[in-house]
């Protein structure tokens, strides 16, 4: 049986004996590729029947190259996974039947050769049919006029990626079949092989988050979880999962699995048909791993349902139940539930012990702050207290300035000093920190030795905390690296940009002007960047932006090899001192700063709510009078003002919420929640008015309200 002729004859015989595989492949890929391609293109053509012919060609070509014939086709991916799994189970399932094992293993063919024959049968029964159907789909696309962007590169790349992932899933499924002597258990092992790495990483991260106060995730565990999750890698829409390195990695893993499968297949004992696991030495480690996972899994379930204090009950029941189930499965005997009870007790000790060990933080993880000399960069996520829409401070790149590093380290020390405040970390699983004034800081360090370190702190809001934030916020380096800011737009890679401009008087459902020309928009963004760096702390604290910009961009991302559309940078402030930017906006959009204007407002609605009885800004007499009005009117009292002169007085210092959103978090507004002023522009447009701190016209408003009642 060693000659090539015999090899191929035998190969043909194996395919003939398992005809179900090529038939299913052919039919399945026919439906998901040529037929689906024709249907979708036809559907698109019907949908855009009134569009220009050239435009139609572009649209359907994009549909074909971006979805139907690309690696993004989820139906094909699903088909590949199903066929890979099915092929493995159909061809290798004989290992689960002693009758079939006797037949195959009595034949004069070596186990190694038999494995290769079966392996190739699976490959040949699926992949050629996929390729043929894919090429038929390509022909269909061309025939329908959707072949503008179909290139040899696209065809090659798509086929290669699908073949590589087929090999991965096929090898994983074969491994699962070889490892067990029972098909149901093999299916379970297959699921475990697919999900073990991300599940373990996720469990480890969850346990660390639960036990350590400052644990802030781990890039390593995250990378292991995502890259070790074959289904996510295959289905992930992110270009990250389609990079050459990931594909080469997947191919290498497939080859390693192939070699491992061949060895295991060769040494697997024939008599293991019907047994739960074929290799008895894997029994204990597999059971221990799964029991611990189940124990901690049930712990999190109990915590989410009943609260933090139920964690130990969850572990106990999780371990006991899982151990019993695995013993019953291993022995195919329900009476074996409590067999090996000593192992169960050992696992309970390990589970509780590991949790206690983590909680004890013996290595001092929580209090660790790197030495300033070892840090070459810091990135920060923090929240400015009561800062409104722009209170979230985040950097998209590391800050490397020594002063900023020093300040962030001080902030970290402040976080460490707050570790002993149990109220900040006293939480249930479902509730976040109970302490009201708590602020959250995430700090990431880039160290000289090339590693990264990350910590999360809950701290009390204080002048010291705010001081550190303000020391960083107004540095040029922070401004240039602030996420969701004007600097977070890849200006040189833009392919599309749209800027919507609002003045202080523009209501939320309107814009005052729009710039869609890419060059003009780019010029404005660049000018605004320059002028944004001139913003001082005092200006941020006291000035209201005269314009607000909302910027929507699309750009080509080299790293992900794709277009990134719909990147919004909203609430970008333009202060009165940004004269060049204002001039450009005036020139390109014909919009000038315009204060809130009584003429634009149809009327004001002043609402007095029941809470007014607790309003300490009012004297007792006024409070009582207003409170009486609300109780007479079922909880709230409304006064409508339409007189333009009175409106002008009320809105003199008022700001629309749309404008306050773009102001610095240092700029504080005041709003009385028991007396609210709403500007009515028309029947559909109303806006709540805000006032700078100390400028809320409480006296004027109470006079109007009480006057209206006389």
């Amino acid at each position, binding site marked *: *049986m060693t000659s090539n002729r*015999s090899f191929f*004859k*035998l190969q043909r*015989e194996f395919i003939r*004996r398992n005809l179900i595989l090529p038939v299913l492949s052919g039919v399945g890929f026919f439906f998901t590729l040529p037929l689906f391609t024709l249907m979708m293109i036809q559907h698109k053509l019907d949908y855009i029947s009134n569009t220009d012919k050239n435009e139609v060609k572009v649209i359907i070509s994009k549909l074909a190259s971006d979805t139907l014939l690309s690696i993004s086709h989820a139906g094909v991916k699903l088909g590949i996974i199903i066929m890979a799994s099915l092929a493995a189970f159909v061809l290798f399932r004989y290992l689960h*039947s*002693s*009758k*079939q*094992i*006797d*037949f195959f*293993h*009595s*034949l*004069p*063919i*070596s*186990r190694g050769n038999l494995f290769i024959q079966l392996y190739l049968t699976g490959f040949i029964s699926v992949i050629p049919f996929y390729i043929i159907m894919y090429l038929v789909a390509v022909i269909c696309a061309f025939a329908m006029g959707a072949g503008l962007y179909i290139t040899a590169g696209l065809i090659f790349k798509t086929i290669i990626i699908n073949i590589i992932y087929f090999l991965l899933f096929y090898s994983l499924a074969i491994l699962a079949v070889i490892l067990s002597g029972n098909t149901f258990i093999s299916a379970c092992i297959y699921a475990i092989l697919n999900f073990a790495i991300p599940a373990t990483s996720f469990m480890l991260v969850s346990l660390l988050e639960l036990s350590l106060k400052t644990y802030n995730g781990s890039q390593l565990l995250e990378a292991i979880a995502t890259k070790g999750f074959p289904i996510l890698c295959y289905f992930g829409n992110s270009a990250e999962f389609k990079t050459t390195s990931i594909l080469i990695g997947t191919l290498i893993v497939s080859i390693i699995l192939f070699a491992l499968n061949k060895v295991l297949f060769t040494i697997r*004992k*024939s*008599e293991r048909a019907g047994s739960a696991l074929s290799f008895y030495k894997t029994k204990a480690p597999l059971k221990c791993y799964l029991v611990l996972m189940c124990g901690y899994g049930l712990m999190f379930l109990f915590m989410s349902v009943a609260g933090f204090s139920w964690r130990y009950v969850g572990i106990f029941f999780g371990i006991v139940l899982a151990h019993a189930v695995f013993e019953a499965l291993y022995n195919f005997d329900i009476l074996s539930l409590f067999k090996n009870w000593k192992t169960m007790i050992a696992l309970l000790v390990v589970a509780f012990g590991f949790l206690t060990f983590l909680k004890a933080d013996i290595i001092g993880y929580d209090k660790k702050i790197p030495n300033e000399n070892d840090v070459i960069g810091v990135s920060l996520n923090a929240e400015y207290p009561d800062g409104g829409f722009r209170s979230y401070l985040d950097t998209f790149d590391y800050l490397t300035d020594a002063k900023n590093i020093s300040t962030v380290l001080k902030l970290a020390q402040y976080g460490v000093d707050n570790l002993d405040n149990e109220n900040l970390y006293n939480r249930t699983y479902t509730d976040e920190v109970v302490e009201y004034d708590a602020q959250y800081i995430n700090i990431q360090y880039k160290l000289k030795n090339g590693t990264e370190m990350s910590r999360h702190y809950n701290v009390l809001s204080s002048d010291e905390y705010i001081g550190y934030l303000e020391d960083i916020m107004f540095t040029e380096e922070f401004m240039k690296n602030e996420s969701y800011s004007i600097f977070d737009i890849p200006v040189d890679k833009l392919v599309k940009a749209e800027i919507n401009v609002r003045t202080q008087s523009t209501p939320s459902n309107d814009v005052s002007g729009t710039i869609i020309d890419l060059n003009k928009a780019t010029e404005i963004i660049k000018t605004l960047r320059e002028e944004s760096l001139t913003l001082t702390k005092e200006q941020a604290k006291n000035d209201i932006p005269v314009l607000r910009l909302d910027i929507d961009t699309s750009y080509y991302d080299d790293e992900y090899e794709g277009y990134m559309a719909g990147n919004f940078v909203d609430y970008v402030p333009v202060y009165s001192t940004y004269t060049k930017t204002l001039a450009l906006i005036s020139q390109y959009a014909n919009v000038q700063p315009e204060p809130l204007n009584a003429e634009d407002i149809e009327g004001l609605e002043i609402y007095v709510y029941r809470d007014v009885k607790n309003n300490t800004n009012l004297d007792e007499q006024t409070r009582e009078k207003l409170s009486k009005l609300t109780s007479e009117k079922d909880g709230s009292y409304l006064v409508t003002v339409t007189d333009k002169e009175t409106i002008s007085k009320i809105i003199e210092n008022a700001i629309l919420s749309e404008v306050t959103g773009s102001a610095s978090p240092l700029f504080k507004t005041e709003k009385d929640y028991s007396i609210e002023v709403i500007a009515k522009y028309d029947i559909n447009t109303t806006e709540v008015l805000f006032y700078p701190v100390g400028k809320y016209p409480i006296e004027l408003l109470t006079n109007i309200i009480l006057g209206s009642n006389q």
Partner: protein
Amino acid sequence: MICSTNATKYFDSLCAVDHVSAEIQTGSVFGLIGSNGAGKSTFLRMLSGILKPDEGSITIDDEEVFENIPLKNRCFYISDEQFFFSGITPLELQKHYSLYYPLFDKERYKKLMNAFELDEKRKVRTFSKGMKKQVSVIMGLCSGAEYLFCDETFDGLDPVARQAVKSLFAEDIAERGITPIIASHNLRELEDICDHIGLLHRGGILFSRDLDDMKLGIHKVQVIWNKPFPESSLSALNIMHKDRRGSLYTLTVRGTRDEVQNIISNTQPTFFELLPLSLEEIFISETEVIGYDIKSLLL
């Protein structure tokens, strides 16, 4: 020659075959008999290279069988529970086996299929149990293999087919010098065809002998004395089993015919007759000696 040296096989903690040593001469028909669970099938599966002994060795012509493909080309295993591919016909099965066995005799296959009146284009799954057995035997005989490992092969065959298979075996032994190793419960069947017997019991081999020698070495004696049972006079006799119905004693004894005859004659019995022992009786006697006495439960 097939040689088993201390071949041992464990299934988890159960010792299915316990240090079995036996030799099977080429050209002989070896019958493997044994009680239920004795390890006959396991031993046969080790002989045919399906199972690897956990201890000891199984060799054919001084070569290990397991994973020895040239050697396995000379062996054919007919399982008690045969497996056939779904929807396969005998013709397709013949083509399948031809791929593995280069010496597969297609002409003989056709001849035998006709002789057994089996339709080679009919799906095997529609065949009766006996017909499936016939198909397997035909495949085995036509494969060109020198060693046929038959596990309960005669079970399910009708008397005519059984006789035909026996004839075919005899023919192949005579013409090609094949060595069939037949595991069976049906001792009467084996008695007709085997010239060598191995008796397995609870995983261990009790003996492996030539059938004629065995028959010559064990005898059934019916004897009547007009006095009490002469125990002391018979002490030289290896009595394996003693049964009494009235004054008639039935003894199963080990020894040569002359030896037994002399010892019993010296006790001056009223009636004495030396009867031939069937294989079944030998099996029962031998297993009873080591405590396998189900018969006593039934009587």
